[in-house]
């Protein structure tokens, strides 16, 4: 029996506002416990929520970027349940009338493009943090700093069919949020979270199978692995004639498996109702249009523009636009020195490799765009050879120094003076009579040997082109 997977992903993204969703406390992520609190976000008696305009605007921005319909009227609702990190005993969220409905993301899979539908996007507040391994072993501890930070929840349709598609969808969504500057997009830090819903069903059937919910997915890899594991687990169950139980499973990254939650999860009755402390959120057409105008060029469009404007390949354009900071870096370089293809090559082949090794962001790179551009120019105007340039690059990466400074310090300037090179060429020819003979006899490949020798003698600084020319001339 062949099964297909039906996967939906739910993302909670923390918005990069200055203040919290319903109060004016700072959203500082690294503050010491219970210092970013006020009567409102700690649910003191008598307090009331007031909506943060910037959070609404970020939600609108995101909704537009994922091609959703911004709802002119949306309603905040209370989601009622008891938990220590939830001070009011309810979370202010949106239920029946969210701020954005519909939307989609196009992702690249092995078989081309696929469109993943998005069901909805809504605003809500984050809960506090519950710690279990601090202090007294029989106690848990609560920190309300995070309580009230604005979140958007984005729910995909059940369109994802493979773990890889899931990864691609998440990466793209994250990319958009970072491009829009509405979210940091860091899974490990918890400001971009993902839960998955997954079921399987026989291919060519319509009816959904029983789905399980996966939580505790703390990296893109974990998402893909957990989905793969769960598909296998469910397939095995069904093949053995057993049923899949509807439950919430936690992904255990250490054990690389999903585990059922120890406590029996009772069905929640959240008793949603419109929050009477907040009036319906009205977003008029003008506001939406104004936000639409401020939308930055997103990755997709930027990549297309790079191909058109800079003549680089689709693939290169995609890699360069994957991170906005890298795309900006690239364009700065090109602005300094207009050789887009060459610069693209340097970034793709050299810079990205180094950054990956160090697990660094392009913004953390020590080489300034102007300097990288400079390096390329120095090759083009024959100040240094391509080979030497690689050396210089490494030094630039380590120290952040400008290429001309390094070249001068280390005396790496390419020698293009034909007369000085000639002297060395003559020296090498004179010192290697056997090889000269072989070359003249027809072993053309030995030219490389002579070039090598000349380069050795000149510590790589001889202009290889001139070396080649002179050798060819003299070895006739």
């Amino acid at each position, binding site marked *: 029996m062949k099964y297909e997977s039906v996967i939906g992903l739910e993302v909670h993204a923390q918005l990069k506002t200055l203040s919290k969703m319903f109060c004016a406390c700072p959203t500082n992520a690294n503050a010491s416990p219970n210092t970013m609190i006020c009567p409102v976000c700690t649910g003191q008696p008598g307090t009331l929520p007031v*909506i943060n305009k910037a959070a609404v605007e970020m939600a609108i921005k995101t909704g537009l970027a994922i091609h959703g319909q911004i709802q002119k009227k949306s309603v905040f609702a209370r989601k009622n349940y008891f938990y220590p990190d939830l001070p009011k005993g309810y979370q202010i969220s949106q239920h029946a009338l969210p701020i954005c409905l519909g939307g989609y993301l196009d992702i690249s899979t092995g078989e081309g493009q696929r469109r993943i539908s998005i069901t909805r996007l809504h605003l809500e507040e984050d809960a506090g943090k519950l710690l279990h391994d601090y202090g007294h072993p029989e106690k848990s501890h609560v920190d309300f700093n995070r309580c009230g930070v604005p979140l958007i929840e984005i729910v995909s349709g059940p369109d994802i069919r493979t773990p890889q598609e899931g990864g691609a969808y998440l990466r793209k969504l994250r990319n958009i949020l970072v491009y829009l500057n509405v979210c940091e997009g860091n899974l490990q830090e918890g400001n971009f979270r993902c839960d998955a819903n997954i079921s399987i069903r026989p291919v060519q059937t319509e009816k959904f199978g029983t789905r399980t919910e996966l939580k505790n997915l703390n990296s893109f890899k974990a998402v893909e692995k957990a989905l793969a594991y769960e598909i296998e687990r469910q397939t095995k169950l069904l093949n053995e004639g057993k049923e899949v139980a509807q439950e919430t499973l936690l992904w255990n990254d250490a054990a690389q498996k999903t585990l059922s939650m120890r406590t029996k999860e009772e069905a929640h009755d959240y008793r949603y109702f419109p929050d009477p402390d907040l009036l319906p959120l009205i977003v008029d057409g003008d506001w939406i249009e104004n936000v639409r105008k401020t939308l930055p060029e997103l990755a997709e469009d930027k990549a297309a523009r790079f191909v058109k404007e800079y003549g680089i390949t689709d693939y290169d354009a995609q890699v360069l636009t994957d991170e906005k900071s890298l795309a900006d870096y690239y364009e700065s370089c090109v602005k300094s020195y207009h050789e887009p293809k060459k610069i693209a090559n340097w970034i793709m082949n050299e810079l990205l490799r180094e950054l990956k090794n160090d697990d660094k962001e392009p913004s953390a790179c020590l080489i300034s765009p102007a300097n990288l551009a400079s390096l390329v120019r120095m090759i083009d105007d024959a100040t240094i050879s391509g080979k030497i340039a690689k050396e210089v690059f490494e030094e630039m990466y380590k120290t952040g120094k400008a290429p001309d400074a390094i070249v001068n310090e280390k005396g790496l300037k390419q020698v293009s003076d034909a007369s000085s090179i000639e002297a060395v060429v003559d020296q090498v020819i004179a010192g290697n009579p056997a090889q000269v003979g072989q070359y003249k006899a027809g072993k053309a490949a030995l030219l490389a040997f002579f070039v090598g020798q000349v380069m050795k003698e000149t510590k790589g600084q001889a202009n290889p082109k001139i070396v080649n020319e002179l050798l060819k001339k003299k070895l006739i």
Partner: protein
Amino acid sequence: MTNQSDQRTIASLHRQLIRGDVSSVELTRDYMRRIERIDPSLNTYLLRSTDLALKQAEEANRRFKKKGNVTPLTGIPIALKDIFVTKGIPTTCGSKILKGYVPPYNGTAVQKLINAGAIIMGKLNMDEFAMGSSNEYSAFGPVKNPWNPDFVPGGSSGGSSAAVAADLCVASLGTDTGGSVRQPASCCGIVGLKPTYGRISRYGIIAFASSLDQVGPMTKDVTDCAMLLNIIAGFDPSDATSLDTPVPDYTKALVPDVKGLTIGIPKEYFVEGIDSEVADAVRNASEIIKGLGAKCVEISLPHTKYAVPTYYIIAPAEASANLARYDSIRYGHRAKKCKDLSELYEQGRTEGFGPEVTLRIIIGTYVLSSGYYDAYYLKAQKTRTLIGRDFFEAFKKCDAIITPVMPTPPFRLGEKLADPLKMYLSDIFTIPVNLAGLPGISVPCGFTNSQLPIGMQLIGKPLGEETLLRIAYTYEQATEWHKRKPVVR
């Protein structure tokens, strides 16, 4: 037992304080002595903020000396229903679950009073979490009606109404969700106003039913009501439901003239089942107002009978969510010896909440729960629209509506405790006003043969406080009810 002596109102005391006939400190001390002597028999004060009051009085003295920054409320002893969050002053909301809770902030209305220089004498007894119509559901004992201690002072702002009537404070702030300012005002023979929903900020009043709660001045006469309203009304950026409309000078509405105004008399409010003394008193009042130049017309509010059931779905529902924060984790009562979180929640809350609150939380949870939401809560919110429409239509024919406040005079302590529905029905005339978000004022209009006060209610259009104050003032000045206050020893 009545007393016709000169009353200590905000207006009269303000004049005396300005003239220097009395100092704020003297006045405050006098009230403190009076409270000490009289309150034990009434049980209106849950807490007397003696030190703070004297400090404030000394500051007020300084303000008067400097003749700077003086408002009508400066130096005036005010007491607050214990539902108002007061920084540094324990606030219980009439409940065990908040016993010992010391708030870290002042609510907006309270801060406005403090800024105006009022003297906060203390926190007043109330039905627990404002759920009640008799002040018998307080965790700290019932309040007695100063006119007759065997009778209830009304609720849930029973402590406020009794304290004002007995002159244990010059005026008070209460809150009104289904009548909790107007009904106790009527029971104690004082003035109580519930303004238009959103006129006064709710930030800092412990929430019962968010879409219905409003702060209300409770005063000895209509003039004081206008003066107090001036200080506390207005938009508050901390309350998204507060109205962003300018606050007029409400004292300018105190003109004894109702010529040209039309008063509506709703036929559904004068049906069988209303006590004849109440009906007579209110009818007489409408005759007097007519005699003063207003027109009276009969109007209809056809959905009246659905108001109480609507209220007893919406209010408990909102309350069940508003009271979820009392989970003993960040403040309030905590049960001892709990082996796990589940026990912590259940024991603490069950120990802390009284039976009426518990009952309403259960009702509220039920009407919101899956499967019942549409039939109950959603249905009630739709019925509310119909009730609001009734008033909208009625106000095409009149400027204000006159009704009794309660279908009966004040009842005896213990009389309505057995059957909750009996108690709920005493709010039948006040509840529709909260559901529609309209302003309503309760004004004394008579006494029963056994000398218990009877009040009449005037209901106004949205933001129609000025019309209400005008009619109420005109009526008040043409009668002597407001001059009668109970003698308490």
